[in-house]
């Protein structure tokens, strides 16, 4: 199949994990995981810490190597030996540019202004012209409501603002898939709302596939088409938000939700 054909959204699932196993040393963090996600679906991953939620996202983005199974994004394989650097000129894995990711700790580039944070990858990786890159920065900083902070440095922003810049930075690459890894967990409670509002807006306006690891159950219920409950590297519940969150028929899910609500 040609590369172009991969890029076109088809009826086949966009993300496919088959029997994926990931070990950190002697610890098995992902245990023969099967998962397929159609294009455009908004999926929330929930579960106790250490259950492997974040690792699933990192595997899909190719940030981690895995030991067994296969991962495919938009028809292109994510190699099992992911996690290293790719060298300029070397054949890049075909999945690149299609998956954007936002992290718990924002990971903005501290030496670049907000605007430069957003334009850097479009300029250096996609090789866009300055005008095009600036136009994208303008568009996505507007979307996250931070156009007025374009010339500030990350250290001058609140955590919530930094996370919104990180979201704009990822969106500026126009990914087909967006991964959100506990993006509100490092924020002060009063800053969580502004970040969730941005993600909610993206979920409603954009066609892209979204995977979110989150502890915000209400939020998951609001925006997700599908909720996965993970435990010990496996998916133990998979269904609509109502099925998994409101009326779980799974004992472990029920126990976890009770614990979360007691916080």
């Amino acid at each position, binding site marked *: 199949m040609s590369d172009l054909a991969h890029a076109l959204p088809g009826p086949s699932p966009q993300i496919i994990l088959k029997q994926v196993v990931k070990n950190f040393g002697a610890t098995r963090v992902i245990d023969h995981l099967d998962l397929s996600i159609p294009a455009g679906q908004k999926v929330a991953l929930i579960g106790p810490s250490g259950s492997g939620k974040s690792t699933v996202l990192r595997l899909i*983005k*190719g*940030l981690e190597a895995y030991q067994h199974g296969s991962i495919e994004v938009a028809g292109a394989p994510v190699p099992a030996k992911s996690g*290293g*650097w*790719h*060298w*300029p000129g*070397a054949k*890049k894995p075909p999945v*690149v*540019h299609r998956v*954007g*990711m936002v*992290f718990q*700790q*924002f*990971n*903005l*580039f*501290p*030496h*670049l202004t907000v605007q430069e944070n957003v334009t*850097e*990858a479009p300029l*250096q*990786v996609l090789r866009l012209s300055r005008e095009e890159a600036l136009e994208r920065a303008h568009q996505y900083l507007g979307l996250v409501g931070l156009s007025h902070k374009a010339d*500030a*440095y990350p*250290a*001058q922003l609140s955590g919530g603002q930094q996370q919104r810049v990180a979201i704009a*930075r*990822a969106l500026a*690459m126009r990914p087909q898939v967006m991964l959100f890894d506990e993006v509100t967990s490092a924020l002060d409670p009063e800053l969580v709302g502004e970040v969730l509002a941005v993600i909610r807006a993206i979920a409603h306006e954009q066609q892209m596939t979204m995977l979110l690891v989150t502890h915000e159950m209400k939020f998951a219920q609001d925006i997700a088409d599908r909720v996965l409950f993970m435990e010990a590297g496996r998916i133990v519940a998979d269904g609509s938000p109502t099925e998994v969150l409101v009326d779980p028929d799974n004992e472990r899910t029920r126990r976890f939700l009770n614990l979360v609500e007691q916080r």
Partner: protein
Amino acid sequence: MLFDASTLDTARFIARQLANGALVTLEITFFAQVVVVVMSFVIALMRLSPWRALRWIATVYVEILRGISALVLLFYLFFILPLFGITLAPMTTGILGLGLTFSAYGSEIVRSALSNVARGQRDAIKALDFDAITAFRRIILPQALPFMLPPMGNQLVELLKTTSLVSLITLSDLTFSGGQLITTLGQQTLIWSIVLVCYFVMAWPLSWLVKRYERRVTHWRRGVAP
């Protein structure tokens, strides 16, 4: 009279000799520093590379050069290598000997500065699909420079002063010129005092330049325009 013709002539002679010597000193400092910067980065990147063989070679390089006296290394390059048929010009010997010695320390400075860049930056770089070289040039290095500049600046001044060792392998640097003047004119106190001031006058602007450059590359930490 205090400034008769012969005194002026002597003063001119001293000035000319010391200026020539200072020029040699600066020349060696400059080229040795080029060796230091290049080798520091090469060795630091080798030590941080995922390949065990490269890491091992780099570690041996650092440990050996750190453990050798710079002067003995210079003697070795100058007097012993010719016995094996390798003869280097005194200038080359001085530049290589000092450059290699200082690069062992320099590579440790570069390595620790590079490892100081937050781990999350690596995730961000890969999440945005940067290739390794672009990421190093645009993201990692600008963040590491502020950590390496102050110790690198110290080292540069130290290097300038250590170049006096090359006077022992027949190079007519500042120290050598001073020694020669004393042989011909006497006047120990006067000559060594002038030489001392000369070193200071060369070292001080170096520290100042490094500080200026440091301010330039750290403007983002203070959140102001460069």
